[in-house]
């Protein structure tokens, strides 16, 4: 399962198009700043040093840095690390994007324990054909959003926001509205 999935993700990553964020054909834009690019680069290097295997579809450096990528912007290619364990910094620190880390597991308990071992908890995704297992895992994952057999969906009527150091409060839905309201007794049932 692990190898098959990794191969499929690599194939998909190879098809991602870099470009201007306002261009509809763009899949991946540049990193927001030099500081963030340095942070990603440093964490990626630490992951390699700590034993994870690095993979990118192609070097996305701009021509000025000797690569075939877009000319302007702080580019970091979509990157996947396999063989990641929870002790590695890349599994614990907040990186966001455009780096994917892959860890394999033997039991659902292991998934819950490992996922909950970070200081963050914005979102999680569960892919499985077993309905009972998805409910079980969704209940255990300490994250503000759990997408079952889906990922990254947002809707103005649905609360979005993280646990722990991933944020305070919620945007969207009734929970999101409450932060903008000060109605005496509005919380009283």
């Amino acid at each position: 399962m692990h190898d098959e999935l990794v191969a499929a993700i690599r194939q998909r990553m190879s098809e991602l198009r870099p470009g201007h964020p306002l261009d509809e054909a763009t899949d991946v834009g540049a990193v927001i700043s030099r500081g963030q690019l340095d942070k990603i680069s440093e964490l990626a290097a630490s992951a390699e040093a700590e034993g994870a295997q690095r993979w990118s579809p192609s070097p996305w450096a701009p021509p000025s840095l000797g690569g075939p990528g877009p000319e302007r912007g702080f580019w970091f290619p979509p990157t996947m690390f396999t063989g990641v364990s929870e002790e590695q910094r890349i599994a614990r620190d907040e990186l966001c994007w455009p780096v994917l880390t892959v860890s394999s597991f033997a039991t659902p308990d292991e998934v819950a324990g490992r996922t909950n071992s970070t200081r963050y908890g914005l979102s999680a995704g569960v892919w499985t054909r077993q309905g009972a297992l998805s409910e079980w895992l969704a209940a255990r994952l300490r994250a503000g959003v759990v997408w079952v057999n889906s990922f990254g969906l947002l809707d103005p009527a649905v609360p979005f926001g993280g646990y722990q150091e991933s944020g305070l409060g919620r945007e969207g839905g009734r929970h999101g509205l409450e932060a903008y309201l000060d109605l005496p007794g509005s919380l009283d049932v």
Partner: protein
Amino acid sequence: MSELARPALSRPPRARAAPRTTYRLYIGGEFPRAVSGRTFEVHGADGTFLASAALAAGRDARDAVTAARAAFPAWSRAAGYERGQALYRVAEVIDDHRAQFALQLRRAAACAPDVAYAEVDAAVDRWTWYAGWADKLTQVRGAVNPVAGPYGTVSLPEPVGVTAVLAPPDSALLGLVSVLAPVIVSGNTAVLVASERYPLLAIALAEAAAAARLPAGVVNVLTGEVAEISPWLAAHQEVNAIDVAGASGPLADDLAVAAAGNLKRVVRLPVADWTAEPGLDRMFATLETKTIWHPLGR
């Protein structure tokens, strides 16, 4: 010689030395001394010496957080019904020891007996009221969201985690119960810092929790100086929220700054009239919201 033959009643009365209790902390279901071994004297409102209590410091705060963290998985995953039952039992134990709590209150606050009994009864009622929320919170605080697409989504309240609670200094028992119960009813585990004026009531509550078999570590109680203990909790990476009800304005400001280090939820509600209806704000303040998406289809 048999028991019956002993002339017990004919002996002259002798002077007794009443036991002089040194109260301890309550951590992980045990009653340990402070790691430093230090104690402080507790006096009633009229200046009478009441007892000695353990003077907690940073190391005790860390032990309490460790115990609260260890208790969190089981307590937070327990069914609301189970948590409710566990909390009702605590209310029963307090009620069973009504006279004892009232006596402690009279000594600590120098109040009349009827005032003391009224506060104990109000505290039992308050605890019971919160206990009733254990199996109702999810329905009242949760939501089914109307998403524009082929997905079903639900939003559920979950406890934020280990919560530090600073007991208010102006209400020995009712205020204490009013800040502790709303935290643990939803599945949080608590590290309670007793008020400096009324530490013995906090320990009495801990004894009631222990007697009621509330799972170890769900409530942990530290006694000592609030300004000494609370900064450790506010800065602790394993603490997820802090209710600063028992901190003065400047201390509360400092604690809020320290709490930002790991984005703790800081509960800072307006000064309360503890005898008034508590409302739901305090209970809701230590909840997270988890939203689960499922695709819908054939």
